[in-house]
C-alpha cells in the first residue's frame, strides 16, 4: 500500500485512499479485488439463469403444459441463454483471468489498472441495465402494417398460469431478425437486450486490450511466452478472439438498435433489408464467442490436471498451439450455424469442412490431457474430479459437434433438442465443470483456506449425475423430433417420459449448486488453513502467500523454466522420477515469510473513482436512447454523455500513482513508517501460521 497521498491539484475531490470497506471496493484498481467482484456478480447471475432454466423445465415436464404462457416461455429461454453466456460464463472467466493473470506471469497488476476497473464497472452497470428489463421492459403483440393484429400468442401472453416475466426480451439470445426487430417485437424489451449486450461487449473489448498488453509487456524476467502457464496462454488467445469478434457484434447491435429506434431498414424485409445479413454478422461473432466461453476452462483444466497427476502437462507446446489453432480456425466456421438458412451448397460444404478441421486441435488437447493423467499418481481431490469430468463431458459434447459438421445430418438436428444437448455438454459439461475445478483449486489462493472435501465431492457427484440425467436424454429427444424454443409439445409424440427425467436431473443440479454455495461460505470462515502450497503445485502463483498481499510479489520473480515452482521443490532421479528436495518445506516457509515482508517500499497504483463514474454514464445514455422520443429521454442521453465525459477528463488528468512521502532514505529507523501494511486479517492469519512474529 502506498503512504498517504498529497491532494493532487487536478481533481476536485480528494483522491481516494481507502482500500477497505465499500468505498475501497468502489475505487479499487487492484486486479484481485476486481476479479473477486466479477466472480460474485457472475455467480449471482448463474443462480438467476439457473432459476430461469428450472422454470423452463417445469413447463416442459408435461406435454401441452400451460404452466408458463408462450410469452413467458420465450422470455425465459431468451434470458436463460443471454444470462448464462454473457452474464455468467464470460464474467466468471474474466474473474479468473483478472485474478490470476498477473500472478501467473509474475506481475504486480495488469497493464492498465484503472481501465481494468472500468471494464468491471461497465459490466456491472451493463448487467443491471440488461436485467432492469424485467422491471421496465415491455413486449407487446406485433401488429401488421395494415393494422390487423397478427394474432401471435407469443409476445407477452397467451394461455397459461405464469405470465410474469413475459414482457422481457423474447427474441432468443441470438436475436434473429426480423423476428426481434421493430415490426415483430415491438415494445422495449429487445432494446434492453440489444443495448445491454452492447454495454457488455464494450466491457469485454476494453478488457481484451488490457490483457493483451499485459501479457506482451508485463511478464517477469525470464518468463518467455512459451514458459507461461497454459491458463495465461488461453487468456491471451481469448483476448484476441474478443478483440476481433466484438466489433462485429457491436455493428450488428447498432444496426438492430437503429432499425428499432431510428427507422433504418437493415433487416426489415418489407423495406429491403436482408435477414441473412443479421445471421452472418451475429455468427461471425457468435462462433468465436463459443471458443471464448470454453478456452478459459480448458486453460484451467490444463493447470489442474498436471498438479493432481503429479506429472507435467503432456505436450505443453502442443496444447498451447492447439488452443491458438482452435481460435484461429474458429473464425472460419460461423456459417455452420446457418446450414438450413438457404446458403449455397458450396458455402455449406466449405463451412462443413472447416468445422471438421477444428476437431483436430481439439483432439490434440484431449489426448494430451489424457496423456497427462496416464501414468500419474492421481490425487482425486475435488478440483481433479471436476477436471476429469470436464475431459469426459466435453469429449461427448465435441463428438455430437462433429455430427453437426456433416451437413445433411445437421439439417435433421437443427432446431431440435439434439443441438441443445450438444451445446450443454460442451458449455456445462465443459465450461462449468472447468470453472468449478478452478474454483476449488484456487479457493486457497483467494482465502488462505481449503474448501471442505466431503462437501466438494458430494457437489461433484450430484452435479455429474444431475448433469447427465438432464442433458443426455436431450440427444434422443431431439432425434425423436422435440423442437427447440417451443413452448409445448404434443402428448402423442411420446416425449414426456424422458422430459420428466430431464427435469429431475435439472433439480439435482440445482441441489448440487446449493451444496457448493454452502461449502463456499462455510469454508471461507471455518475451512482448514491452506498454508502456502496446499496442492503441491507447479506454477508461480503458489509462491506467494494465501491470500496474496496487495502487491502480489514482494520481489519480482525471475523465471528460468516452465513449471518453475515445481522444480524449486523437486529434483529428478536417474529414472526421471520426482524426488522432493530435503529443504523444500523450509523453502516454502521462507517464501511465505519473504512474501509478507518486502525488502523495500512498493509503489502501487492508487485507487480511483473515475472508472466507476464513467461506467455509470453508459446505461444512462442507453436508457435515454430507448426512450429518446420523450424529452426526458433526450435529457438522459445528454446527462449520460456529460457524466462519462467529465469522468474521462478527470481520469486523464489523474496520474496513475500518487507520490510517496518518504522516498529517499532507507534507514532502518524510518523503515517502520514505510513497511508495507498488510490487511489485519492477513496479518492475523500469518501470525497464526507462525510465519510472521508479532514484534
Amino acid at each position, binding site marked *: 500500500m502506498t503512504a498517504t497521498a498529497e491532494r493532487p491539484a487536478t481533481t476536485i475531490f480528494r483522491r481516494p485512499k481507502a482500500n477497505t470497506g465499500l468505498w475501497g471496493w468502489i475505487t479499487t484498481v487492484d486486479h484481485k479485488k476486481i476479479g473477486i467482484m466479477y466472480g460474485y456478480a457472475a455467480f449471482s447471475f448463474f443462480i438467476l439463469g439457473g432459476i430461469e432454466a428450472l422454470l423452463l423445465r417445469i413447463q416442459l415436464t408435461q406435454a401441452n403444459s400451460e404452466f408458463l404462457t408462450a410469452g413467458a416461455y420465450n422470455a425465459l429461454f431468451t434470458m436463460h441463454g443471454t444470462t448464462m453466456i454473457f452474464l455468467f460464463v464470460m464474467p466468471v472467466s474474466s474473474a479468473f483471468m483478472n485474478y490470476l493473470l498477473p500472478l501467473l506471469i509474475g506481475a504486480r497488476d495488469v497493464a492498465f489498472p484503472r481501465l481494468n476497473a472500468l471494464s468491471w464497472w461497465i459490466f456491472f452497470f451493463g448487467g443491471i441495465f440488461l436485467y432492469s428489463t424485467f422491471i421496465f421492459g415491455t413486449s407487446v403483440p406485433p401488429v401488421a402494417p395494415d393494422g390487423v393484429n397478427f394474432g401471435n400468442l407469443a409476445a407477452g401472453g397467451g394461455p397459461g398460469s405464469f405470465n410474469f416475466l413475459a414482457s422481457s426480451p423474447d427474441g432468443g439470445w441470438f436475436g434473429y431478425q426480423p423476428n426481434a426487430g421493430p415490426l415483430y417485437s415491438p415494445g422495449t424489451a429487445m432494446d434492453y437486450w440489444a443495448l445491454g449486450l452492447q454495454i457488455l461487449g464494450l466491457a469485454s473489448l476494453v478488457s481484451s486490450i488490457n490483457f493483451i498488453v499485459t501479457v*506482451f509487456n508485463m511478464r517477469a524476467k525470464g518468463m518467455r511466452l512459451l514458459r507461461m502457464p497454459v491458463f495465461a496462454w488461453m487468456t491471451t488467445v481469448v483476448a484476441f478472439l474478443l*478483440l*476481433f469478434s466484438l466489433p*462485429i457484434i457491436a455493428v450488428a447491435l447498432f444496426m438492430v438498435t437503429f432499425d428499432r429506434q431510428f427507422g433504418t431498414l437493415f433487416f426489415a424485409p418489407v423495406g429491403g433489408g*436482408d435477414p*441473412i*445479413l443479421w445471421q*452472418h*454478422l451475429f455468427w*461471425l461473432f457468435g462462433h468465436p464467442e463459443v471458443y471464448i466461453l470454453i478456452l478459459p476452462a480448458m486453460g484451467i483444466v490444463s493447470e489442474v490436471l498436471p498438479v493432481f497427476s503429479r506429472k507435467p502437462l503432456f505436450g505443453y507446446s502442443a496444447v498451447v498451439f492447439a488452443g491458438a489453432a482452435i481460435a484461429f480456425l474458429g*473464425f*472460419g466456421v460461423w*456459417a455452420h450455424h446457418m446450414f438450413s438458412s438457404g*446458403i*449455397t451448397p*458450396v*458455402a455449406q460444404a466449405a463451412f462443413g469442412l472447416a468445422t471438421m478441421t477444428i476437431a483436430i486441435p481439439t483432439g490434440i488437447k484431449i489426448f494430451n490431457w489424457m496423456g497427462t493423467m496416464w501414468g500419474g499418481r492421481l490425487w482425486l481431490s475435488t478440483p481433479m474430479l471436476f477436471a476429469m469430468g470436464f475431459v469426459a463431458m466435453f469429449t461427448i459434447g465435441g463428438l455430437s459437434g462433429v455430427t453437426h459438421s456433416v451437413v445433411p445430418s445437421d439439417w435433421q438436428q437443427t432446431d431440435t433438442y439434439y443441438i441443445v444437448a450438444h451445446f450443454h455438454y460442451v458449455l456445462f459439461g465443459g465450461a462449468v465443470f472447468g470453472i468449478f475445478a478452478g474454483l476449488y483449486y484456487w479457493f486457497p489462493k483467494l482465502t488462505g483456506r481449503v474448501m471442505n472435501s466431503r462437501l466438494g465431492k458430494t457437489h461433484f457427484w450430484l452435479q455429474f449425475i444431475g448433469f447427465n440425467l438432464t442433458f443426455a436424454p436431450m440427444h434422443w429427444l431431439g432425434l425423436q423430433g422435440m423442437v427447440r424454443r417451443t413452448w409445448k409439445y404434443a402428448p402423442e409424440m411420446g416425449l414426456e417420459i424422458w422430459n420428466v427425467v430431464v427435469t429431475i436431473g435439472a433439480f439435482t443440479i440445482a441441489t448440487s449448486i446449493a451444496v457448493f454455495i454452502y461449502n463456499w461460505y462455510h469454508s471461507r470462515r471455518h475451512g482448514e488453513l491452506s498454508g502456502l502450497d496446499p496442492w503441491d503445485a507447479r506454477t508461480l502463483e503458489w509462491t506467494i502467500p494465501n491470500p496474496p498481499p496487495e502487491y502480489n510479489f514482494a520481489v519480482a520473480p525471475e523465471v528460468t523454466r516452465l513449471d518453475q515452482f515445481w522444480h524449486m521443490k523437486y529434483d529428478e532421479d536417474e529414472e526421471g522420477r520426482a524426488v522432493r528436495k530435503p529443504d523444500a518445506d523450509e523453502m516454502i516457509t521462507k517464501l511465505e515469510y519473504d512474501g509478507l515482508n518486502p525488502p523495500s517500499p512498493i509503489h502501487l497504483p492508487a485507487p480511483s473513482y473515475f472508472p466507476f463514474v464513467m461506467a455509470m454514464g453508459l446505461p444512462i445514455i442507453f436508457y435515454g436512447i430507448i426512450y429518446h422520443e420523450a424529452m426526458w429521454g433526450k435529457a438522459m442521453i445528454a446527462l449520460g454523455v456529460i457524466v462519462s465525459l467529465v469522468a474521462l477528463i478527470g481520469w486523464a488528468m489523474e496520474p496513475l500513482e500518487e507520490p510517496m512521502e518518504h522516498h529517499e532514505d532507507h534507514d532502518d529507523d524510518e523503515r517502520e513508517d514505510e513497511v508495507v501494511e498488510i490487511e489485519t486479517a492477513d496479518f492475523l492469519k500469518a501470525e497464526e501460521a507462525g510465519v510472521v512474529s508479532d514484534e
Partner: protein
Amino acid sequence: MSSEEHSHPTPGQYWKIAAFLAVVTAIEVAMFYIDRQLELGFLNAAVLLALSAIKFIVVVGWFMHVRYEKPLINRFFAGGFVLACALYLVVLTALGVVAIRGG
C-alpha cells in the same frame, strides 16, 4: 514525445509524401470521370482499388510510422486488417455481392 530513438522522416519529407498523396487522390477522381466516359468495368475498380491501397500503405507506413516500428506492431495491425478482409470477403461472397469468376 515518444522515447524510441529511431529515424524519423524530416518535415520536408512529410510534405513531399503529402503532395504524393494529393496527386494520387487527383488521379483517383480523374479515373472516376474517365470511367464515366469509357466504361472500363472491372479495370476501373482494379485501378481505383490499387490507388487507394497505395495511399493506405503510405499513410500506414510513413505517417503511422509502421516502417520504423518494431515488427510486432506491424503484425498486430496487419493481422486485424487481413482477418477483416478475409471474413468480409467470404460474407460478401455468401451474400452474392461478390461473385467468384467462373463459378
